Each structure stands twice: as structure tokens, then as C-alpha cells.
């Protein structure tokens, strides 16, 4: 069981690299949706059955697999952009940095002691690596859509960490956190729609009217 979980985590790490390495926005959105689905399935593998668990899984699958990707795709369609043209950090350097960050995450995770039931599992390093990659995307891309994608990747990383706490954490917090993130992204989506209407582009590098001269 745990071996399967590890393989799924590796899959989600791969998704990180896909997102880092591609310029096609629609492709990254789908990849992130896949990551969300993979992560949504994970709890079923490591935790015993409970209604609480079912609720989380369904919530995850719906939110990360369907609603959010659909919303972002919608935004892409409206703004009529397909590609991230001028990333702040190029795709090859992004991949290299992503690899570096992933390695760093493994080092960091190995420095900190884990509970015995999590030792030998990829949860903590994968979570760290995904968060760092999310950060990297946020820093490396200029377009608002890419940044939402980066934020989603980061969220996924945090979610992985949350998984190892899921059975111990009360439902209310979990659900609240999920709901909040969902609403957060949802509001971002609305704002993106407004941006595309106002600027006819989702390039956040154009959003630099507010600055100090």
C-alpha cells in the first residue's frame, strides 16, 4: 500500500517538472488537475476508512480535479492566450532549479526527525519539493494564469503534508482550510477575469502601474 503511495507521490513530483518545463498553459492546467486527482486518491491508500476521509477525498477530487481547472481553462479561453511567452526564468533554468529545489527538499526532510510511521516514506520530501516548485513557478512566470497554477502546485504540496496529519486533525479545520483555499482560488479566478477585461491580457508584468518611481 505504502509503496503505491510512494509511486503516486513520485508521479506528482513529475507533474511539478511538467509544469515547470512547459510553456503551454492548457497543458499545465491539465497536469495540475492530474496532480490534484492523484493527491485526492492518496488518503484512501494510507488511512483507514472513515466518513471523514470520504468527505475529504470527494471534496479534493471535485475541487482540484474539476472545478478549479475548469475555471482556469475558462479564463484561458476568454483571454485567448495559450502560452507563457517570456518567462522571468527560462524553461531550462526552471527545470534545473526545480531539480535543485527538489534535492534540497530531500535534504531538508532528512535533517528533521519524522514520526516512526512516516519514516521511509516520501511524504515529507515530496511535500517540500512540491511547495518549492510552486514557489519557483510563482517567481519564474509573469502571467497571472501561470501564477495561479504555481499557487495551486504550492497548495498541493501543503496538502501532501496535511495528509500525514489528516487522521489526527479534526474535520472542521481540514474542511475549513480546503474551503478557504478553494474560495481563494475562486476569487483569484474572478479577479483574473476582470484583469483580462481591463487589460486584455493576463500578463501580470503589465500590472506594474503601482510602484515607486
Amino acid at each position, binding site marked *: 500500500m505504502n509503496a503505491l503511495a510512494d509511486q503516486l507521490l513520485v508521479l506528482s513530483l513529475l507533474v511539478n517538472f511538467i509544469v515547470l518545463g512547459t510553456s503551454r498553459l492548457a497543458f499545465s492546467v491539465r497536469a495540475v488537475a492530474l496532480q490534484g486527482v492523484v493527491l485526492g486518491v492518496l488518503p484512501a491508500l494510507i488511512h483507514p476508512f472513515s466518513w471523514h476521509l470520504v468527505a475529504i477525498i470527494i471534496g479534493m477530487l471535485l475541487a482540484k480535479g474539476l472545478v478549479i481547472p475548469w475555471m482556469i481553462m475558462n479564463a484561458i479561453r476568454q483571454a485567448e492566450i495559450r502560452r507563457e511567452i517570456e518567462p522571468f526564468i527560462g524553461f531550462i533554468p526552471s527545470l534545473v532549479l526545480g531539480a535543485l529545489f527538489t534535492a534540497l527538499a530531500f535534504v531538508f526532510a532528512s535533517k528533521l526527525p519524522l514520526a516512526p510511521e512516516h519514516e521511509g516514506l516520501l511524504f515529507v520530501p515530496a511535500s517540500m519539493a512540491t511547495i518549492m516548485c510552486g514557489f519557483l513557478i*510563482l*517567481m519564474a*512566470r*509573469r502571467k497571472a494564469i501561470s*501564477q495561479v497554477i504555481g499557487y495551486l502546485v504550492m497548495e498541493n504540496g501543503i496538502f501532501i503534508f496535511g495528509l500525514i496529519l489528516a487522521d489526527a486533525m479534526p474535520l472542521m479545520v481540514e474542511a475549513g482550510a480546503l474551503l478557504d483555499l478553494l474560495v481563494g482560488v475562486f476569487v483569484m479566478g474572478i479577479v483574473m477575469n476582470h484583469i483580462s477585461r481591463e487589460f486584455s491580457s493576463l500578463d*501580470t508584468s503589465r500590472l*506594474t502601474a503601482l*510602484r*515607486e518611481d
Partner: protein
Amino acid sequence: MHSDVLRDPAVLVLIAILVTAFSGVPGLLIRGGATGQRLATLGAVIAAFLGLHSAISLLLAKTTTTFVIAWNLPFDACEIGLDPLSLFFLIPIFIVFLCGSLYANGYWPASSHRSSEPALTFFYGLLAAGMGLVVVARNGVLFLMAWEIMALAGYFLMVIEHDKEEVRRAGTVYLVAAHIGAAALFVFFSLLRLHCSSFLFPGQGGLHIVAAPATALFIAALIGFGSKAGLMPLHIWLPSAHANAPSHVSAMLSGVMLKMGIYGLLRFFSFIADRPLWWGVVLAVAGLVSAFLGICLAASQRDIKRLLAYSSIENIGIIATGIGVAMIGQATGNPRLALLGMVGALLHILNHSLFKPLLFFCAGSIIHGTGTRELDRMGGLGKRMRWSALLTLGGAIAISGLPPFNGFVSELFLYLGFFGEARANLPYVVLGAPVLALVGGVALITFVKLYGATFLGNPRSQQAAHCHEAPLSMLAPMGTLLGLCLLGGIFPQLLLPLASPLLATLTPVVSGTASQPLPLGWITMAGVAILGLAALLAFSLRHRVSALPKATATTWGCGYLRPSGRMEYTGTAFSEILTSLMSGIVRTRVAKAAISGYAPPPAAFCYAPEETILERLLLPLFDIVGIGFAFCRRLQHGQAHIYVLYIFATLLLLMLWIH
């Protein structure tokens, strides 16, 4: 019970401060008409008489009273105390407040300044009350609050005519300087709290610290109080502030508020019994430097009020010199030096708070009469403004330190202190005397210039030609002040009992009869003799001249037939020799067009003395810092992804640092 409380002069003093604070409040509520101003004046009269009477009687009785007031702030008890040091400083506050309030009725009448008068009157009272609270506060935080109330009230008074760019600029510089000075006082009172473990002031000599902590306290006090007093080079706010405020406000700022800095220093010194010798040396040197540079800058000014403002720096310098000399005397166990320095300084505090407000009032009546502050546009006012001319003349003589006015008395004591050391063990102290003499010489130039350029000769402009005399409401307070100046100059015996109760606190080394080495009787004699001789000569000469033929003619123009007022020797020209001699200190900005050809076009000439430290040092420094800041401001470039990078970098740095 109640009547007993009200008979206690200490309570009366506090009531007087309260009345002062609220004297302007009716004016804020009753809009329109002069009722508010009249009520404020009435309040000022009541407060001043209550306060002066009680303060002087308490001072002569050498009593100390303490009150504790309940407050809920976490800074120990709110203590208010009246000791000789406080009472002494209350005297000028009430005198100048009274005179200024009376003067305002003519100078800033509610009828012609409908919108600004209520605020001006209100803050005037608040300023005086703030100063009153400063001197009675016995808790560091209460002191700071009073201090800032005073500073802010002063600010609002100053910018009352904020339509003018110059006023706003002066106000900003003042406010910033006051704030930085207050920051130094934050340090001062925090350190004091550290050493006393309470915000309450320690008693006389109650603070026993040496070496580094004492040095830190001294430096903080010197910056905090010195900037308020206007010691060089912390004076930058002073000239333009005094110049741009309404004149009765300048009188208050210069006559009293500067003394609050001196009060703070004296209060601080009273805490520490064993003051290092070098403190006195630093203070005396700073004082002499301020006095000399201040008067040199004053001499070169073209603006009558800036001139007076710089002269305030000079006088504060003289006061600081006196205190420094007294501290040297205290530290070396030399009672004579301590006595003469301190008495000289204390009397000069009183004297300066009489003649400087007088001169600012005079400047006010000149501005009132002509509508300009430019000395070079005045001239010949003496014929239309007889009383103002006479009062200004008296003030000018008094501030130049000449007999028979009071300025001479305090300077004489300082000289005696210096000269006494020529024969004793501190011969280098005596070097202060020639500097003081030089200061006196330049002061003479300055005030001959002030009086000559305004009242004497022919009018240099239309404004000057059509000037008008100030009303009685302005002249009466001026006359009172001049009378006090003359009284103090001829009968210093009257002033000395006000200063001597402080000596036990400030210079404990002085014991026994304080007046022993002071030639008080001789000063009286000299004053009477000058007045008598002059009267006698005037009488006999008048008698003589009345028998002789008399004629009037125009001034002999050395053959030039059509002299005009514009060709007179201006004030600027009068001080030009000195200014050029002191060009290393007094920078002037001269702008003139190059003249070419046989028939040159009309050209303009501009000559303006600069505020050396502000314009040559601080503003360029600010510019450099501003460029640096502008460079740093690029960090906020508006690119969101880099902002995320900041977060990431912070996280990374903190993680690295903590592990």
C-alpha cells in the same frame, strides 16, 4: 478647608497655569467679535498676577511644594513640584505671556483676523501653559508630554499664516527639529529611568553615576535640551521659526521657550552632585561659540526678525557660557567662579526674557506700521513712530549689554567670573572674556544697525514713508518691559533674591552670603550717574543752545544736490565690513547681473545671508540621503513575481539563520 487650599500660593500657581491653558478656549466657542480675545486677555491678566505674585513669594520664601496627581499611565506617579528652580522659570513665562496677550489685542485683533485669531489665542495660552507644566513636572513622562504640548502649540502658532510658502517651510523645519530633539529626550528619560528605576525625577544630587552612563545622559541632554535652546549647531530651526511667527509669538518663543532648554539642562545638572569638569568646559565652549557665531550671523541679516532670532542664539550662548563656567567652578571647588557664572546666567535668563520680547514687540509694531520685515526698506520711522522708536532704542541698548540697562548687569557678572580666574588657578577660563568682549562689540554693530536702519534717516520706501504708530495696547506692554529692563539695570539688588535661592541646588559649592563679591551698589551708582550726568548736560546745553540762533536745513550731502532715501547707507551696507571679515562663517548669496556696454539694461542685484549650517550642510546631506533612498525605492517595482521572491528569500534566510 477650601479657602485654606486657595490661600496656598503653590495651589495658586497651578491654578494660574490652568487658567493660562484655558484662556483661549472661550474664543474657540464664541465665534466672531472680539469677546473671545478680551476674555483671553482677562484670563492672562488674572493668571499672570496670580502666578507672578505666588511664584515670587514662594521663591523668596525658598519653599518646595510637591503634589501627586492620579493618572493611569504606566509611568510611576504623576508628580508636580514647585521648587526654586521651577518658580524662577515661571516668572518670565507669566510676564511674557501677560505682555504678549495684551499686545495681541493691538497686533492681531480679532476684528481684522477673524479666522485665525481664535486659534492663535488658544494656542498662545496652551504654549504658555505647556511651558508652565514643563517647569513644574517632576515625572519624566509628564515632562515629555508638557514638552511636546509646548512644541506643538509653538508649531501651530508659527504656521498661523500657512498660506505663505516661507512660513510652511519654517514650520516644517521647526517641527522636525523639535521632534528630533524630543527623540533625544526619549533617550535621556529612558536612561534616567534606568539609573533611578523610576520616571520620577531624583532629588537634588540624588543621582550617583559616573563615567559612561553619565556621559550618555549628558550627551542626550545636550542634544535634546540644546536643540530647544538653540545652541549651535542645533539652532537650525530657530531663525526662520522666529522670523515667520507673529511677533508676539516670536516674543514668547524667543523670550521663554528657548529658556526651557536651559531649564532642562539646569534640572538635569541638579540631579547629579559630582559633575565632571569637562561638562562645564563643553557647555562653556558651546556657549561661547553660539554667542559669537550667533551674533555674527545676526549682524549680517536683512530681516529684522531674523536678526533678532540670531541674537537670541547669542544670548542663549551667553547663558550657556555662564552655566558652563559655574559648573567649572563647582567641579574645581571654586565658589567664586560658580557664584558669578550662575548668577550671571540666571540674571541673563531673566534679562533676556525682558528685552528680547520687547524687541520682538518693537519689530511687531514696525511690521504693523510698515508691512515689511526688510530692514533695507525701512528708515525714518522715528518721526512718525516716536514711542516705538524710543522703546526700540531702550531695547537695543539693553540687549547690547550697555549700562544703565539690565543686560550690562548679567554680562558684568560673567566678566567678573572670567577676570577672577586670571589671578587664580584656572587661567584659561579667562579666555572667555575677550570673546565676550568681541561678542559685545558685534552686538553693538547689530543693534545700532537695527535701530539706525529702521527709525533713523529718511524713508527708503513708500511703506516706510507712510508708516503709522502702534496703538496703546501694543505700546503699553512694551513700555512695561522697558521699564523692567531699566529697573533691573539700575537696581540689580531687586533681581538677585530671585536668583540666589537656586544657588544651593545648582552650585552647592557656593555657601554663605551670595552677594559678597558682587558690586551691586556700584552698578546702581553708575546707572544713576549716567542718567544724572546726561540729564545735567542736556539741561545746561539746552539752556545754552536756546540763547543761540538756530536753523534747519537738509543734511549736508557733501556737495551732492539731490540725495534720495534710496541712496542712504542701508543696514546691509552698515554691517558689510563685518560680514566680509567673517565671510568664513557668514555665507552670503550674491546674485548680480554682469554689466556690459555703455548703456546696460536694467539689472537686478540680490544679496542674502545664508543659514550656513542648514543650507550648506544639512540640506545637501538630505539630498544625498534622498538619492540613496530613491535608489532603494526601486525595490517596490510593481512586479508581483519578484515580490514572491522576497517572501521566499526571507523564508530561506530566516531558516538558515535559525538552524
